């Protein structure tokens, strides 16, 4: 499963562009970003104060007391310092809490915006995109991939800024405290930087691979869960599991490779920074012996060095987070860049109430890169006319409808509605005029009522009931314990297929379209119920253009005209009698069905 349509693992890296594209999502929250940075700076100031106070304590009262033995006054002095320290620490904690809350909120808001944007963008893409991409992959994009950006926004952006400030700030302060000692520390610093960044190249590749593996895993599982009944019916549990094991193992391996990188990274950083610290001890030990510096100063210096190493380590750590986030951002933006193959025109021709004239003018079409599915098809349908389309399976009937609603664009020729090429119309306005019952019924989880009116609150419950009555769905709906409020499970798992078709039928009637298109809409409905439906249709169809696709010829007997397709070409057209007369394809179908 899902061996098809795999996505490549490697893409080109384009960080700068990615970052530039992320900025607009952060922009609405720039005040809060600024606030958070201010809070971080406050925290930094507090961090600087703490070692300083310790130094004051050690070199001041403690050293004094050791020298003159006056413990009492030294303790009082020390108490004062401790009180200051306590106050500073309390302020720092408050700042930290504030910063955390602000950033979480910002991060979550941005993610929400991104998710919504990705989801609505996907909703606007053309069907050809959905032909190519399994649902599991798309779900991964709007959930896991976007989630990975979380850290980038919550801690990433401001922390990087903060860390840079911190590094520069600490170095300045260190120089100020004790320039020679700082010199010792700074000799080691380049090594630290080199080590940190040695890991980065590795990281990006590893993360990109991880994202792809995650997506594959999800797509496989999603298909597997949905097709479980078929898997079980055909006893393929073992084999499916084996194939899953392969995907699952690849997923693990990708992660383990990334772990190797991480596991080396922290200890290496630790080694280098400890070496620097030890060098500082060595040097300052000599300096203390020589009486050049005091012990408290050494202590302050030591603690301050910690403040230097932390941000450096954090920066490289964040770099990893960035790599991971960028790998995700690539995928999310890849999605947002996906242009719908169906572009709405700049200035669409208005189409308020369509008369329902339809024209196919020398239309040739094929899906994607594939062969032509329709070849040079031309026909006209007058407003209010009822047309039936018949033909062998795979002849291209559904394709005609896909072109009429402009779900795909023709290769050559024109499809016109009310005399306008559909490419001049706003697809939404066009589709509003066309009521479509699809060959495959799709129901949404929720209840029956909402499935009929599709969450359109403008449609009253009475109207829904009436439509259900018209199509004869009321009989089974009212037999259910909760009637119209009965639960519908995923894909309508608990309705019979015929019942689902009736619901889809009722759906299209509530929307009252100018053009009605029924693609095998009664294929799974028994003849008796269908007869009811036919009567209802006769009434509702008056004045509307209708296209009926059916294999059961009985279904289309009301049609004014019948178009017969074969292998993507329009082969016969005319009324039932004319076609029977012609003794062609239609005649043959007719003979077969009348038994």
């Amino acid at each position, binding site marked *: 499963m*899902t*061996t*098809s349509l795999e996505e490549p693992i490697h893409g080109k890296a384009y960080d700068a562009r990615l970052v530039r594209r992320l900025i607009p999502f952060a922009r609405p929250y720039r005040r809060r970003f600024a606030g958070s940075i201010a809070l971080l700076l406050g925290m930094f100031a507090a961090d600087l104060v*703490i070692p300083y106070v*310790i130094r004051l304590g*050690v070199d001041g009262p*403690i050293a004094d007391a050791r020298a003159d033995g006056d*413990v009492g006054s030294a303790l009082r002095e020390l108490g004062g310092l401790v009180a200051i*320290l306590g106050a500073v620490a309390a302020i720092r*904690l408050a700042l930290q809490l504030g910063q955390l809350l602000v950033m*979480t909120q910002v991060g*979550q808001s941005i993610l929400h915006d991104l998710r919504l944007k990705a989801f609505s963008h*996907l*909703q606007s893409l053309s069907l050809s995109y*959905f032909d190519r991409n*399994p*649902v599991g992959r798309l*779900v991964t994009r709007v*959930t*896991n991939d976007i989630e990975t950006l979380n850290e980038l926004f919550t801690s990433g952006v401001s922390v990087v800024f903060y860390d840079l400030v911190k590094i520069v700030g600490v170095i300045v302060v260190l120089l100020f405290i004790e320039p020679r000692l700082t010199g010792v520390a700074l000799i080691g610093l380049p090594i630290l930087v080199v080590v940190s960044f040695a890991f980065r190249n590795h990281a990006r590749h590893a993360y990109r691979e991880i994202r792809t593996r995650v997506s594959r895993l*999800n797509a496989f599982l999603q*298909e597997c*869960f949905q097709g*479980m*009944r078929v898997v*079980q*019916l*055909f*006893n393929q*549990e073992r084999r499916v599991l084996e194939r899953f094991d392969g995907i699952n*193992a690849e997923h693990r391996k990708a992660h*383990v490779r990334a*772990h190797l990188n*991480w596991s*080396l990274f922290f*200890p290496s950083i630790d080694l280098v920074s*400890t070496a620097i610290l*030890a060098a500082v001890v*060595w040097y300052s*030990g000599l300096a203390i012996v020589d*009486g050049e510096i005091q012990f408290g100063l050494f202590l302050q210096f030591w603690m301050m060095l910690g403040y230097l190493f932390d941000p450096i380590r954090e920066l490289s750590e964040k770099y990893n987070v960035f790599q991971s986030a960028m790998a995700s951002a690539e995928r999310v933006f890849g999605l947002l860049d996906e242009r719908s193959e169906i572009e709405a025109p700049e200035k669409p021709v208005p189409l308020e109430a369509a008369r329902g004239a339809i024209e196919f003018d020398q239309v040739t079409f094929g899906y994607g890169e594939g*062969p032509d599915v329709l070849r040079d098809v031309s026909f006209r349908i007058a407003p209010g006319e009822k047309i039936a389309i018949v*033909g062998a*399976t795979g002849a291209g009937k*559904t394709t005609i409808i896909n072109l009429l*609603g402009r779900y795909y664009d023709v290769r050559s020729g024109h499809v016109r509605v009310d005399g306008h090429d559909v490419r001049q119309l706003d697809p939404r306005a066009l*589709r509003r005029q066309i009521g479509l019952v*699809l060959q495959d019924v799709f129901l949404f989880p929720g209840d029956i009522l909402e499935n009929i009116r*599709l*969450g*359109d609150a403008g449609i009253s419950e009475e109207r829904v009931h009436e439509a259900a009555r018209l199509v004869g769905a009321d009989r089974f709906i009212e037999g259910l314990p909760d009637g119209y409020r009965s639960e519908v499970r995923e894909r309508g798992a608990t309705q019979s*297929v015929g019942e689902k078709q009736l619901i889809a039928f009722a759906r299209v009637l509530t929307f009252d379209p100018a053009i009605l298109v029924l693609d095998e809409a009664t*294929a*799974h409905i*028994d003849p008796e119920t*269908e007869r009811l439906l036919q009567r209802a249709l006769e009434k509702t169809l008056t004045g509307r253009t209708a296209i009926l696709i059916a*294999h059961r010829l*009985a279904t289309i*007997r009301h049609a004014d005209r019948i178009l017969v397709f074969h292998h993507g070409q329009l082969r016969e057209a005319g009324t039932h009698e004319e076609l029977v007369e012609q003794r062609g394809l239609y005649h043959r179908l007719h003979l077969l*069905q009348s038994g």
Partner: protein
Amino acid sequence: MSRFRRLGRLLRHHRRWFLAGLICVPGAVTLELWIPRLLGKGIDDVERVSRGDDGGTIDIGDRLFTLFVVVVGLTALKSAFRFGMRYWQNVGCRVVEEELRHDLLAHLESLSAGYFDRNRTGDLLSRATADIEAIRMAIGPGLMYLVNTLLVLPFALAYLLSLDATLTLALSVPLAAIALTVRLLGPRLYRRSRAVQDRAADLSARAVDGFQGVRVIQAFNREQSEVDAFGMLSRDYAHSQLELAKTRGWLQVFLGAGRRVCILAILMIGGWAVMRDRLSLGDFFVFIQYTEMLFFPLMAFGWVLGLFQRGRAAWDRLDEVFTATPEVCAATGEPPLPRLSGDIRFDGLTFGYEPDCPVLRDLDLHIHAGETVGIVGRTGSGKSTLARLIAHLYPVPAGSLRLDDLPIEELPLAWLRHQIGFVPQETFLLSDTIEANIRFGRPDATDEAVRWAARVSQIDRDIVDFKDGYEQMIGERGVTLSGGQRQRTALSRAVLMEPSILILDDSLASVDADTEERILHELREVMRDRTCLFISHRLSALRDADRLLVLDEGRLVEQGCHADLVALGGVYARLFHQHELEQQLEDLP
């Protein structure tokens, strides 16, 4: 705790990774504790020399150089330990994660159709990914930091105690306070983590719907309302994350406060001890180092706690799947017969998907081996249900359904299903090549057999037109095929099983009369000596049936051959006249 037994077993099974990781921990911790002490000693030397206490016996330059070399060497060793600890630990939990996911899928595969009717794909998906991920985080980094902390804490405290008891006791007060806070915040962390995971599952379920239903959504211009609904769930999810972050934030603040209190205590009490020469400056340094060192794990402890609570919430969600039992109980072990002959008997079977609303009632029916029966009935009368029961997709009351005179419960599921060729009313194909789809039930089938199956369903005529022929990839669920092509692929898939019982559930509904005729012709060959259930709304398709069954509201109301049923003047006659009437109407000039 027995809930965690499965996890425990997994951990035990893969213990070598964790043990390898854990073995490194004491080494790393020992060195971690030792290095500051070496530095402290060095500082004491420095102090002694600078005060002149050593009487000139110490060559301080030499000492400090040795110290430098030793510290760097030991740190290198420590880094090696840390690497081992991290790496093996991580590999271990990835392996556990992998196996857990394998187990989850294996378990889901054992569950019955009813489970998948009730549970949403998106929700299951989120359990198999996000929740398992959360569990991994809890057993991996979570466990590692926990062990690390538990080792560091007692040794560090013991050493500090030997240096200065008062100070150490003073330090244990904030430490204890932290432990208490962590405990108190635990349940809340759990609740909020669980909320986050539930909301995430809702969100992903909604995304699945939104993408699967995109054809309908676009056809009815419902994009906006779909986006709004998704947006609402997305906001709920973001909100639940925020709530969780608040709890975590407070936890961090409490931990941070504890840390500062410790520093203050060291400065005050330690300073006092230093003044009275009870504590050397080097030891004062060690105190500061150790508390910092204790704090990193303690901070991590807060984080670990979050991980554990999240892991527990995730485990509970996973456990809901693991504790679900298959509703269909079937015998395991040796099949009682080499092969089914295809004799099916319903004995007063009453069945409902929900306990109190029967879909099939008092069904008494005997289908003989090799017989072809046609089943007709109104929409929702229970035809598909009847077919599903024969494949034992849903549980039936004991003894009410017998195959070859054996109760269906006594037949091993895999063996049973291997002998049934089922074409479901709604086709499900996989995104794979068309050949792989036909071969699905019999991966070992020969190419000739596949070609033959394709010919029976007449899909071979379409396949030659495809760009890649049998290797043509078809989109998810077969979206790149026409409705009839999809149905016929499913028919080939079933026919290839060479089943004892062939079930066609309205399987030619999307096929034109001409193709239908050809398929029926081919099927005649296939159906010879097989039992065949043929559900259809097109009466013309049922003319080969030996017997027709008429279902109405879950009851078998009529049965017999076409002529008898017409003569009976009941439901079937009405359906038939309807049919005839239609034909006549068509033929009117």
